[in-house]
């Protein structure tokens, strides 16, 4: 992607977005932050597990856990750092006015969104996989005998984390293009990914629970962590893809209609 595209088009737009992403210091800070927070969260969860297993109380013992499951749990928090990166690729341009320069260079709105989604995916998917692997490594060291680590499980969970983060990032990228404001988009991501699932999945009314299960965060959790879920992991993945596609299509319609 560093070679010179001779012909613009979608490859050119992708190359431009790639250049823009890596020429901002904030990108590097965000990546470092994601690793730091993931390490911190898994360390806390791992030492908690060890503590609960070794204290006097026996009724709180979780027993031996799959280490990569702890990382999946940590992603609940870590995802917001990663989402910050994805959201800023669009809301940062609206905030600075540079969206106009972007659209001057690449007028088709769909192409701009596709290019941004491609770059976000190309960065966030490997990032998620690496977070999964390093997080598991940290957890397995800290958990010792209380952690169970198999290569297959670790790889599977890490790939799932990468896929979840990439899809949820593309979804929030679309939401960012709809709302255009960094603060509004981040707030909505908290509501949608943290607050709302907690409210809905604990609801007594089945219909409300079903709605809660269809939210992107719930779909992601069932996809990454198959236990006691109402549907198969593959269905979770499909629901996530549907959210990402829907947000991107809505964003394209909005960008076509509204003034830049």
């Amino acid at each position, binding site marked *: 992607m560093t070679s*010179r*595209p*001779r*012909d*613009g*088009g979608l490859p*050119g*737009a992708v*190359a*431009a*977005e790639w*250049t*823009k992403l890596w*020429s*901002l*210091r*904030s990108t590097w800070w965000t990546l470092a932050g994601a690793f730091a927070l993931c390490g911190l969260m898994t360390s806390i969860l791992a030492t908690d597990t060890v503590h609960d297993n070794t204290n006097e109380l026996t009724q709180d013992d979780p027993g031996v856990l799959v280490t990569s499951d702890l990382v999946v749990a940590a992603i609940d928090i870590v995802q917001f750092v990663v989402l910050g990166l994805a959201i800023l690729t669009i809301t*940062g*341009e609206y905030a*600075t*006015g*540079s*969206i*106009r*320069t972007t*659209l*001057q*260079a*690449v*007028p*088709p709105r769909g192409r701009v969104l596709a290019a941004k989604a491609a770059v976000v995916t190309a960065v966030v998917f490997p990032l998620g996989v690496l977070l999964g692997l390093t997080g598991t490594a940290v957890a397995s060291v800290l958990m010792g005998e209380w952690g169970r680590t198999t290569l297959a499980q670790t790889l599977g969970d890490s790939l799932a984390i990468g896929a979840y983060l990439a899809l949820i990032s593309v979804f929030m990228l679309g939401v960012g293009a709809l709302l255009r404001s960094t603060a509004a988009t981040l707030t909505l991501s908290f509501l949608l990914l943290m607050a709302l699932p907690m409210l809905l999945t604990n609801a007594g009314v089945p219909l409300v629970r079903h709605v809660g299960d269809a939210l992107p965060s719930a779909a992601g959790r069932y996809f990454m962590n198959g236990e006691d879920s109402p549907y198969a992991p593959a269905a979770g993945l499909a629901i996530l893809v549907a959210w990402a596609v829907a947000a991107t299509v809505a964003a394209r319609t909005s960008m076509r*209609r*509204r*003034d*830049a």
Partner: protein
Amino acid sequence: MIELRELTKRYGDKTAVHDLTLTVEPGKITGFLGPNGAGKSTTMRMILGLDRPTSGTALIDGRPYAAFPHPLREVGALLDAKALHPGRSARAHLVALARSNGIPTARVDEALETVGLAAVARRRAGTFSLGMGQRLGIAGALLGDPRVLLFDEPVNGLDPDGVLWVRRLMRTLAAEGRTVFVSSHLMSEMELTADRLVVIGKGRLIADAPVAEVIARSSRNAVRLRSPRADLLPPHLPDADIRRTGPDTLTISGVPIERLGMLCHELGVPVLELSPQAASLEEAYMELTGGSVEYGVRGKADAR
């Protein structure tokens, strides 16, 4: 060539551009003139497909902007020098633009050289002065070697050297046969650069003519009359705009100099001086836009 046909833009119930029809031709500099809020920037944004016209069309070489596969190679534009990410270096900003349109990155260094920013190419754009930002915006406009160029208030924030440089650059671009459309709210600036003037006020076309014609048509093309008995004249000139500009001097506009000469003869007024006073472009402009100042304290601005 840029063609606007009945171009109209409303924001809510505010009409920013009203029924604008005009053609901007290649090979010359067309000045786009109007007071602040007249609708210049809005028009340029519509030409570039950034704002959707409420009605009407804006075409470049017969096509809407969005129809160009590599728009930066066809149309270069500096709209807002601040429309870039402050955290990105000048060079990275241009490299991204070049990549998006399949422009060789070697052009980036050429463009930086042209605008005199080569030495600060790796500095973050956020640390640039307004003038440096303008230069970077101009580098972006020149990047794709386009045949059509739009500049929105390009000399804003430039030092006198920079202003001269921009003028010379626009001259060169027009002499190369390119279409140059440049906006300003200052007539004095356009007087020195433009070949043709498009004047708008409150979103409406006021004048579209060669610079010389705009001046010639001005009713401020007055006649100066010096006579010890000058006071005899005004009662005979009910339609004229007459100002006393000296103890025995009147400046009269709206009346041909020939009629004044005859009138003096008929009234037996001794004439010490009778001379045409060409209006300055600035005066012609004030007169044209006097009734259409959006944010002005000028008395003529209509109170609506």
